[in-house]
């Protein structure tokens, strides 16, 4: 086997057939808007568009083993912006589900991240980027946390500079109790499908 990526349509066919909403990726025209609108893009190994490219290229291991597909928090931003109306979120969930079924386990960071994201939304009704990162990084212990923070320091500084991340903690949104009721209901409905 040469050390060269080989296109192989069989994985694409597998995804089209077996993954929930998997055939929707056919419509992707590689504009990149999903990646750029994802609030968790800094944490993904492959943004959604690249996942779709990898599927078409036949990179089964990379896709099903990626943590990106586990990270989607259903914020809908990509779905709303996708010019080809691809339900990116559903595809990501479908892939995550399929990966789990095929025995791939999410890497520990992704699981922690997802959990923390959910917790924050539940607590405040919004995500505090700084707090989220901090909690996710330190969840594995103090030294690991320090290492991670240094690793992502550049990203963090950029986020602050571009006002995508605030240094002071975010406040709760108005009507948090209503949101919590919705989230409870959603969790109930979604039981068995959630990746967490």
């Amino acid at each position: 086997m040469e050390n060269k990526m080989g296109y192989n349509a069989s994985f694409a066919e597998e995804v089209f057939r077996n993954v929930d909403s998997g055939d929707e990726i056919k419509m992707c025209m590689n504009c990149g808007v999903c990646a750029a609108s994802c609030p968790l893009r800094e944490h993904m190994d492959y943004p959604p568009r690249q996942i779709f490219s990898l599927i078409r290229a036949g990179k089964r291991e990379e896709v099903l083993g990626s943590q990106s597909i586990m990270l989607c928090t259903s914020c809908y931003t990509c779905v709303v912006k996708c010019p080809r109306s691809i339900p990116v979120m559903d595809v990501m969930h479908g892939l995550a589900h399929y990966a789990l079924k095929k025995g791939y386990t999410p890497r520990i960071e992704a699981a922690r991240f997802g959990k923390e994201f959910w917790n924050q939304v539940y607590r405040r009704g919004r995500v505090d980027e700084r707090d989220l990162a901090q909690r996710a990084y330190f969840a594995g212990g103090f030294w690991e946390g320090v290492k991670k923070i240094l690793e992502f320091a550049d990203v963090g500084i950029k986020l602050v500079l571009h006002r995508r991340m605030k240094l002071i903690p975010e406040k709760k949104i108005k009507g948090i109790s209503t949101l919590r009721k919705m989230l409870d209901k959603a969790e109930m409905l979604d039981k068995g499908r959630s990746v967490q």
Partner: protein
Amino acid sequence: MDKKTAVYICTGCGIGDALNVEQLLEEGTEEFTIDVSKDHPCLCGVEGVEVIKKDIADEGINTVIIGACSYRVNYDVFNFGPDVIVERVNLREQVAWVMPPEDENTQELAEDNLRMGCSKAKDTQLPEPFKAEEEYSKDVLVVGGGIAGMTAALETAKAGYKAILVEKEDKLGGFLGKMKQSVTMPYKELADTGAAEMIAAVEAEEKIKVYTSSTVEKISGGPGIFSVDIKNNGNAVNERAGAVVQATGWVPYDANKLDHLGYGKFKDVITNVEMEEMAAAGKITRPSDGSPVKNVLFIQCAGSRDPEHLPYCSSVCCLVSMKQATYVKEQDPEAVNYVLYKDVRTVGQAEDFYRKAQQDGNIFIRGAATEVGEAGGKLFVEADDELLGENVKIEDLDLVVLAVGMVPASKPAVTPRIKAPADAENADEEGMIEVLPDSGFFANSALNLAYRQGPELPTLKYGFPDSHFICFPYETRRTGIYSAGCVKRPMETAKALDDAAGAAMKAVQCSELTAVGKAVHPRSGDMTYPEFNMNRCTQCKRCTEECPFGAINEDEKANPLPNPTRCRRCGVCMGACPERIISFKNYSVGMIGNMIKSVNVPEEDEEKPRVICLICENDALPALDMAGIKRMKWSPYVRFVQMRCLGSMNLVWIADSLSRGIDGILLMGCRHGDDYQCHFVKGSELANTRLSKVSETLDRLALESERVKFVEVGITDYEKIPKIIDDFMETIEEVGPNPYKGW
């Protein structure tokens, strides 16, 4: 005609405040026979026009000189019918609005303008439209029986005109006839090509005469009176036509030049044209062994968008590959198509077909092929995948389809060579030189025009006989001959249908205008035409060589043989002629010369220089009007003389002006060069070339070369006009007064 001339000066819009009108009427008309002269506070108003109309009716006035606003406004108000000559003298935009009022220089400018107007009116004759001796035809000759040609013929017939359709193959249809299906509006699904129905409609239409297995051997004459020799299965036939549509189509780019993509090396590497023919014939299989295809890869831009091959985009190949991918899927839903592309170019609503192709599960890979090879009886393609950032390999391919581009049928495989002119730099040892695409000797044989400037339509650089104008896509360098379809530029079927109908429209229109002696675009409706005073011709060939439209032939003694129906009335021939033998009824060397002579040249000690500006009426003159409307200021010493095209500029005007004391000559014309804007294609460039020969005149008169200057002025350059004029006046001041004043 016996002229009875009246002069009317409008004193409205500030003209009356700026000028002494009484003095103007006196001084400005002194040397001319004027029967009536009047001023009016608002000449364009109902009462003002009534005054003129009354004089025409009661006094028998047939020549009206109006000193008022620019000729570009109130053209309809001051139109007194075809029997009255109207000459407009600009006293508003070029005088009252831009010069200081009640100033001696302003007054002199107005007087000179009026004198020039009077002089021009004196020399102007009513046009007598050209009428050829031969009987006129309004039939349209269509060369090429593909989709564009058949459409042009059918559309012509539907409008009630006759068409003659000449096709070199033994049956109609062209590439359309070879296609399995087509992608066209509304771009949702593949559609029937409609070729059979179209061929049947053409054959059933009694207004269309079809010649298959035929070629055009010779076209002589001109619009309205084309004589067409057709070789039909070896027999000679003659037809007459009013105009011609060239729809000779395209040929696929020669895939043998694409051996880096495996063509010629592997049997299963084929072109999109071969793919289409295979699909149309029935089943798509591997050419190597006839086995079914499972995995197909399309290589887009095979030759196109490649400076080594075809630098342009062939426009249709993205859609064609998507169409052929559909064939593959229809044949075997389990088959896989890969499309290796640079950019997906499905413009307009055609984007819908891209979506369909994606929906079908075809895999689009953005990148360029780096290798096409064979392993284990199957093909593989390696490519730089731009979006994965890796070199990738697509294996197990049954078929690789090269999406080769379109080459116009007019483009010669080998550029013809002709005998080089004496001063050519890049002539070979035998004194031969490559023909440039914009020459009539460049393109492949299709029309065989019996024209002095070559048998075919001049083309643009890649061999397309297309228009260089954005606003006028049907413009060609040969009057009454219009190109349509893919010979003109690569286009999909939906566009070819419209393009051909448009070309047919232009052809019919040309026949109609020609039949009544009128010019076609851009001087459409002009009823004058150049008349040659052959007694004084010296057979110098300048007119026959320079006419941008190839209108003038030559006999064996090099006498010019004008073809007025081919003429576009630009006056380039008139400007070229050193013997001044070419004239229009309302535009001639003598007339412009007299206008210039009517300008008063003050004595040197008055320190009032005089400059003549020969200005193109198409772009520079409207720009000057704009500068006037914006109330900009410039020197009062310049006298503007309107040219049909700067290409009609005759050097004798410059020589005459300078020899009677005019201090400088400024020429304002359109941009020339690759992105020329000259509406007569070559006029502005020719004027510039001609100007290089003016040094002879200047040397003879011992005058400075700075006295003559050419500037390119676009229609939106009005902001620059005052500076152009002021800079030139500064130059004139530096070189000092013309010593010939008062001679």
